[in-house]
């Protein structure tokens, strides 16, 4: 069979230190070819971190570059693209104007991703790389540490499950910018830098102590500095391995070198050389968090993550499920942290997804929304950890303040609100948490909350009395037929009470019917 022509896609990244484009043709996640890539170093991050804004001069420069990329896209006939902006634009107070300028001047629309998403994009690419090389099958687990210019993401993977995920506002560039030139020149700088870094990542230590023999998967532009100091070639689609001994040797060297010596010995520009010290000290602290076997440095960058995510969404791939399960596993990790009722959470998830899946055309929602429902179902009760009174409110607060890999800030708002309305009360226009959402999101919250309420009702006794359920539609009626051996009066009453909101949202009457099993 003649293969159809591959699809084309362009990933564009406006980062803090780099603006780049990657043009790719693909048939699947593995069958792809990078046709062209280009990148320029920029200094957006420094500007944002210092002044909180990006100047129009800098934006004009970026737009010129993006216009060039636009031309590049048409040279390959690429129509599908995704332009993602990270830290520098995310944190700029004049973000809205910048995005508008880019749209007006270049015709590109910009996606500004938040930190968890940024970490997730990269995690996707990194995970697939180490997975391809069989590292995920090894014992000991993998600690993914991604250091971007503005953030540090720590993700622990062990046997198919994410057991820890934390994002910290500390990046190599941010560290550098936290100290002014005079401070950096001070004789006590190293000590101060070390303490500063330690204070920021110290809370992670407690969790890390539990693990042994992990691989440290390091990513971020600064990993290239490390490789260069080791005299390694630019990573080229492969993994680079660095032993702990090699790292220690470099660390000890760097501690004794001045900036000038660094530039001379390793051929760094002064700008790069200034990043070396904070980077190496940060790495050293991370290495002292736990016991590691080896350092792994994949070649993948953020821009590869944009590509992976796009292809994954377009081309069917079983690894998508793999990632989905990891995200869910992370939700359970968070649940455990707040001592949730695991069996109840599982039950509610089961019934919620059953109803969601059967409703199909009635709710008009897709896979992403299903995932929101799923994670909200897992976490809907975690507020009980704080207080049994108004626990739904604390669930809402806890979800909002948790890092949940794979979801954007907006999506987290949706899930938190779904949890908020899983029990009592209905979304009201007077409630700030609800009105902060867009109209579209408000509707989404109501839909998912209506479903989760019924699902929660089916196990409101926390007894898992219902062993089986089925959902059928008849006209304006949704009949939930359940099999239970014990008495389910409490469930029936609760279900009936909660079906009103469901009807308000969907215009469908939900009826619970019991078949004795």
């Amino acid at each position, binding site marked *: 069979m003649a293969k159809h*022509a591959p699809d084309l896609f362009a990933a564009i990244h406006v980062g803090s230190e780099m603006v780049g484009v990657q043009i790719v043709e693909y048939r699947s996640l593995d069958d792809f*070819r990078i*046709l*062209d*890539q280009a990148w320029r170093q920029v200094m957006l991050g420094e500007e944002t971190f210092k002044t909180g804004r990006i100047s129009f001069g800098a934006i004009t420069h970026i737009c010129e570059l993006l216009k060039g990329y636009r*031309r*590049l896209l*048409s*040279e390959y006939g690429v129509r599908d693209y995704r332009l993602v902006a990270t830290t520098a634009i995310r944190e700029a107070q004049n973000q809205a104007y910048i995005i508008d300028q880019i749209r007006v001047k270049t015709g590109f629309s910009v996606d500004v991703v938040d930190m968890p998403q940024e970490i997730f994009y990269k995690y996707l690419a990194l995970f697939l790389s180490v997975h391809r090389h069989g590292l995920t099958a090894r014992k000991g687990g993998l600690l993914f540490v991604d250091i971007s210019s503005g953030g540090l993401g720590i993700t622990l993977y062990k046997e198919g499950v994410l057991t820890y995920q934390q994002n910290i506002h500390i990046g190599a560039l941010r560290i550098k910018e936290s100290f002014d030139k005079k401070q950096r020149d001070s004789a006590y700088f190293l000590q101060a830098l070390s303490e500063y870094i330690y204070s920021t990542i110290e809370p992670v230590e407690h969790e890390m102590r539990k693990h042994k023999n992990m691989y440290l998967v390091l990513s971020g532009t600064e990993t290239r500095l490390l490789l260069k100091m080791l005299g390694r070639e*630019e990573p080229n689609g492969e993994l680079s391995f660095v032993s702990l001994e090699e790292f220690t040797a470099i660390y000890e060297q760097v501690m004794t070198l001045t900036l000038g010596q660094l530039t001379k010995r390793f051929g760094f520009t002064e700008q790069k050389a200034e990043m070396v010290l904070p980077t190496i000290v940060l790495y050293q602290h991370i290495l002292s968090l736990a016991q590691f076997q080896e350092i792994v440095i994949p070649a993948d960058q953020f821009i590869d993550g944009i590509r992976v995510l796009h292809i994954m969404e377009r081309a069917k791939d079983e690894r998508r499920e793999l990632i989905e399960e990891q995200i869910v596993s992370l939700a359970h990790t968070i649940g455990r942290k707040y001592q949730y009722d695991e069996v109840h959470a599982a039950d509610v998830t089961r019934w919620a997804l059953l109803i969601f899946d059967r409703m199909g055309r009635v709710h008009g929602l897709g896979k992403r929304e299903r995932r929101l429902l799923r994670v909200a179902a897992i976490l809907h009760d975690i507020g009980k950890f704080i207080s049994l009174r108004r626990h739904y409110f604390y669930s809402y607060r806890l979800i909002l303040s948790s890092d949940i890999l794979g979801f954007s800030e907006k999506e987290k708002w949706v899930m938190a609100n779904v949890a908020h309305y899983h029990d009592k009360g209905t979304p009201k226009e007077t409630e700030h948490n609800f009105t902060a959402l867009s109209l579209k999101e408000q509707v989404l919250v109501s839909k998912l909350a209506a479903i989760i309420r019924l699902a929660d009702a089916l196990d409101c006794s926390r007894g898992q009395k219902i062993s089986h359920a089925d959902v059928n539609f008849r006209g304006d009626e949704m009949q939930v037929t359940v099999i239970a051996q014990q008495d389910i009066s409490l469930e029936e009453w609760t279900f009936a009470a909660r079906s009103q909101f469901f009807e308000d949202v969907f215009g469908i009457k939900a009826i619970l019917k019991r078949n004795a099993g």
Partner: protein
Amino acid sequence: MKPMDKQLDRPEHFFNRELSWLKFNKRVLGEADVTINPLLERLKFLAITASNLDEFFMIRVAGLKHLLEGGVPKTDAAGLSVQEQLQRISNDNHELVRQQYRSLRGILQELEKNHITFCDVEELGPESRKWVQEYFFRTIFPVVTPMAVNASHPFPFLANRSLNLVVTLVREKGESVTAVIQVPAVLSRIVEVPYNDDVRQFVFLEDIIRYYCSHFFHGYAVKEVAYFRITRNADLFIDEEDAEDLLAEVEKSLRQRRRGQAVRLEFGKHGSKILREFIINSLRNEEDSIGDGDIDNDIYEINGPIDCTCFFKFADTAGFETLRHSPTYPQLPMELVGKDDLFDAIRERDIMLHHPYESFEPVVRFIRQAAEDPNVLAIKQTLYRVGGNSPIVKALALAAENGKQVTVLVELKARFDEENNILWARQLEEAGCHVIYGLVGLKTHAKMALVVRKETDGIKRYVHMATGNYNNSTAKIYTDLGLFTANDQFGADASAFFNVLSGYSDPPELRKLVMAPLGLREKIMELIDREIEFASMGRGGRIIAKMNSLVDRQCVTKLYEASQKGVKVDLIVRGICSLRPGVRGISENISVRSIVGRFLEHSRSFYFLNGGEEKVYLSSADWMPRNLNERVELLFPLEDPQHIARVKELFDLQLQDNQKAYVMRSDGTYRRADRRGQAVHCQHALYQQAQAAAKGQEISIKQRLQPMYRKEE
């Protein structure tokens, strides 16, 4: 990179580049004396030396004089101060000019035997003189403006390279005046005078003006007339850092070029000392003149017509075919015989072209076919010197009109082609091409064209790279190698290369190509080092390198090191060579030869034995500091074993040539290669080879029926 070996980097191991260049020009002049060359071809070589010298003065000598003026105490690799260099240039060039005019007189005598004569107006018969007189009044008189020089009329600013007459006039009262007449450049310098016999006779324009010049000055008597020509500094000074619009900036400085400092004066031999002093003094008083005495070194007394470049045009005069080479016809490239579709052929295998033996037409077709192919999405190309009325420029414009994305890098700073290039740049922009001017402070000298095509199994890139320009006129006289490839490793590199030139990207790591100024010299060093390593292991080291000029000190020093370690190095360097070959303990394993023939040797190609895994590279770059530091250049490997073999054969021929080759001796002089034994004329042989190959299959059957004779080179 290791520092240069101090022992090897010593003045006595280097030749001065300017003096070496003069020697090259002398070799070119040598071709004017080769009696088996057709007469007008000899005259053409003479014209080439003259035009070469003009450029040499406008750029190199002017540069040195500028340095001297600035008082920069700089010595060259050979340890010569600027002053010393200028002095020696002057000495050598005086000798060269004498030789030039000796040759000219010889050729003119020969021409006379062939019934072609140059005469003064006085020598003409009455009929002819009548014709000349009419020509003077009708054609010359209206376009000439004599300029008097006196207190109210200062000495006029005479354009660079213009030929002038200086005239002394006297009134009856005895008072004398001086005037200057510029010989109009719009008229043909050599005027054919009708004559009734078989003889064709020619008169120089300036001689007609001289003869009738009293007609310009009524009331004065002409006392004396002399010819002179001024050469000026013509290097452009462009402030790129601050230039908002490079195009405008180059245009502006072009206007200034005509007004550079005078660096050379050619003065007709018959002029009096007084007139000569008058001109010299006038030049010294010019506004930007270089300090006193500096033109003194470069005052040349010319015994014959000043400015021999006029013979270029003359040599092409109709009716003299027998006195020229029979024309050569570039052949269908052997690797394209029997191929209809260029893209198909390239996809099948890499294709190498060797110009001018093989036609440049496929390169034009490459762009034209791309312009018309509906599947082609984009074309990107560098243009350095495109020549007049370029079919490539037309094809690019057509492509843009056909909706292709066309990006063209026009190098505005290509010396003496700036005006031409501004014109193309504008035309291309109007056609809708994206025209870029390259990187600030670097001239883009690399030659590359990239075609992006959408095919059924995805995007496919086709690349052409070469050692010579995309110029269909020079491709007929310059020897150059070019390569077509569809290998995507080259394709990806080509894209990356253009991304850097367009400012889209910081320089990436390239897979196959090496780009100057980012590591080309380092790559050369690495390749030579590898030979040194192999030689040291006893596995033999061998380098053959062909280029136009070898000046880079690091490269030369590295070659000495290679020689010392037993690497055998053969250099085929057409022009400047600052390496001293055959010095015991330093360079005894290095030979240098220079081929100067009908075609200008222009290809840069490099062979490395590499322990048996032979490597051949082609490049746009000479081994000169300016190429390796200040230009965007490319070096690329040949990967098809057949191509490697082909270039090796080429090297063999060039190293065996004993007809057009000169061998450099360790004192820096050149001698013709030993002609004993079988005659090998590489350019001739290659042309014949190309003709045979192009005739293709059916002839080869016929050839099989022919008895075999000993192959004649």
